[in-house]
């Protein structure tokens, strides 16, 4: 066993009571089994095929503090952030490190909708949430997931009851803040019941120059005929390590859109694990990663076509500059009997320097005979002919490169269905390419401290 694991195992053994002290029975009830599983699995290692190009050892060697005793972080995120996506009127919530930021204001959502602290809502609505919490995470073989279940003390819940369509998008801003190096084990639970509709936007930011490790697990349940749009934007700093496991179950005829953008980061590992559990469901998964400096962005997407007549489409693009490293692992499994499956996967990447590296591994496993599946991956440099064409019209080389980079990412942004967010993202991406992106510019950058 590595030293890093040992330290956390001892920490839990000594402080299990403190971890559980202020938490709901539902959260506490899942810890022991997860802890045992973590002791077997350990942290993911780069000797595992799935983590071959994503070495967490250095990030895990840092002595992070865990806020087990739930000390309040002295920050009012409402003072620091005022999201300025024009015309995007959202219901806004905050998680600071791994604590939901409580607010006395009424949330003004339709009756029956739950939106707020995971710890509070698993206490007050234990019977409602019990069938969901850890239902997907228990099946995961990723040590980070069992680690999260062991230590999770809070996070966020969105529950939309059957037949309810949320008018406004829900926006969750997750902030990392602290004066010491810290680890945050965040937990998100998103449930959209039969026939319900929701749009959810989550933005990750950092407000500190300390080292942070955010280990997030998000369980998503999209009910029969339900629809969910899930937008995930990471815009933080080189000192942040982010491991995010998004586990999804889709019921019959449900529709899901996931759009994940890594604008600026340190080391990010995003696992999406999606299972079609009912027929006729559709999932559109897209993402893009803009890397420079020594950033590493690793997206691993697993789509499990367990039942017939489902449709999955994936589009992932990387633009890598300097010494940045990109990793894409895309596995599609079409199980025996999953006839009439449509599954498409596309991964395209641009490397701008000799030092930038891209590792792509598409995997298609098909055990049914009446399916339409395809995958394609391509990694290349900038189109020199297009570059010269633009320069011959008087456009400077740097501007031409920028326009081409921007053009390359356009179709990923086109997948965003929230129009004001799409416009805002276009602007942020352009700023990012121009090198004008301030820290946390997704929200009002001038206020960032």
């Amino acid at each position, binding site marked *: 066993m590595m030293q890093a694991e040992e330290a956390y195992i001892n920490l839990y053994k000594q402080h299990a009571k403190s971890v559980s002290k202020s938490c709901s029975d539902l959260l506490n009830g899942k810890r022991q089994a997860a802890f045992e599983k973590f002791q077997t699995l350990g942290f993911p290692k780069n000797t595992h095929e799935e983590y071959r190009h994503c070495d967490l050892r250095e990030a895990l060697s840092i002595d992070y503090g865990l806020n087990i005793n739930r000390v309040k972080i002295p920050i009012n995120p409402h003072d620091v952030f005022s999201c300025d996506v024009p015309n995007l009127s959202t219901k806004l919530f905050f998680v600071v490190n791994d604590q939901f930021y409580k607010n006395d204001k009424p949330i003004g959502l339709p009756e029956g909708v739950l939106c707020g602290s995971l710890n509070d809502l698993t206490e007050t609505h234990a019977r409602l949430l019990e069938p969901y919490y850890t239902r997907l995470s228990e099946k995961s073989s990723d040590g980070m997931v069992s680690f999260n279940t062991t230590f999770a003390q809070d996070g966020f819940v969105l529950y939309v009851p059957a037949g309810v369509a949320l008018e406004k998008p829900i926006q969750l801003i997750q902030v990392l803040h602290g004066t010491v190096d810290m680890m945050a084990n965040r937990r998100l639970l998103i449930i959209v019941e039969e026939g319900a509709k929701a749009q959810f936007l989550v933005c990750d930011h950092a407000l500190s120059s300390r080292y942070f490790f955010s280990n997030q697990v998000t369980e998503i349940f999209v009910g029969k005929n339900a629809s969910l749009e899930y937008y995930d934007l990471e815009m933080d700093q080189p000192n942040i390590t982010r491991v995010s496991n998004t586990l999804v179950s889709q019921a019959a005829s449900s529709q899901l859109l996931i759009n994940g953008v890594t604008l600026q980061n340190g080391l990010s590992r995003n696992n999406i694990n999606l299972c079609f559990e009912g027929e006729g469901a559709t999932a559109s998964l897209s993402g893009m990663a803009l890397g420079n400096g020594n950033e590493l962005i690793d997206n691993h997407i697993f789509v499990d076509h367990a039942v017939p007549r489902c449709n999955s489409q994936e589009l992932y693009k990387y633009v890598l500059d300097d010494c940045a490293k990109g990793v894409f692992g895309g596995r599609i499994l079409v199980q025996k009997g999953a006839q009439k499956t449509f599954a498409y996967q596309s991964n395209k990447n641009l490397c701008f320097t000799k030092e930038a590296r891209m590792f792509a591994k598409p995997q298609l496993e098909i055990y049914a005979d009446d399916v339409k599946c395809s995958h394609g991956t391509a990694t290349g440099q900038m*189109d020199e002919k*297009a570059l010269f*064409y*633009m*320069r*011959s019209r008087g*456009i400077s080389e740097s501007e031409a490169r920028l326009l081409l980079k*921007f053009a390359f990412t*356009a179709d990923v942004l086109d997948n965003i269905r929230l129009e004001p967010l799409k416009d805002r993202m276009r602007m942020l991406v352009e700023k990012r390419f121009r090198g004008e992106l301030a820290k946390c510019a997704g929200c009002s950058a001038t206020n960032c401290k």
Partner: protein
Amino acid sequence: MLLEIKNLHASIEGKEILRGINLSINEGEIHAIMGPNGSGKSTLSAVLTGNPAYEVTDGEVWFRGKNLLSMSPEDRSREGLFLSFQYPVEIPGVSMVNFMRSAVNEHRKYRQESALSASDFLKLMREKRSIVELDSKLANRSVNEGFSGGEKKKNEIFQMAMLDPKLSILDETDSGLDIDALRIVAQGVNKLRTPQNSTIVITHYQRLLDYIVPDQVHILYKGRIVKTAGRELAIDLEERGYDWIKQEVEE
């Protein structure tokens, strides 16, 4: 003098294509460059516009009194040089509007003029589009993406109209055009003519020269200009082909 080429030698991947070109063009003139396949016509246009794939091994080029070969491709454009590409490049994801706005404003910046306002720019687009009857829908599409052969060539002349160059090089602008498109493109070029600006028409066929009437016709063969005469030379070539020229040169 607008352009002066002296003893220009150029090669690609070590192979010499241009072997001593000499050519002078005054303001307001139209010059046709003709010649058999592989004689170096497109190489000449590529070298003049600064295509990095070609290496200039000898000679000099002066454009409006400045050393053209020492300039970047973008500065050559800003100085007033324009190439209508034989094969216009498709750029998925870059809209014609953004492409042209960047180009026009970079030209203006070079001349120390302020950027055009959005409405002035769109007005300019509309005005210039009508010169070549370019469909307004194309302006909202990505650069050349999904354009037909004729639309691509019209789009080149539209860009020429937008940038108002001093010297335009039309590289096989007639290739792939039907008679109607050819007429529209040629009329567009003629509408843009002024006593100050000049044009080099690179072509295989006399057909285009019925519309764009040259002051001089040059024949390029094996990387050199081997014959220069008035427009009657083009008509001669149409009737007799290139063989007699080749024979003359070999003798």
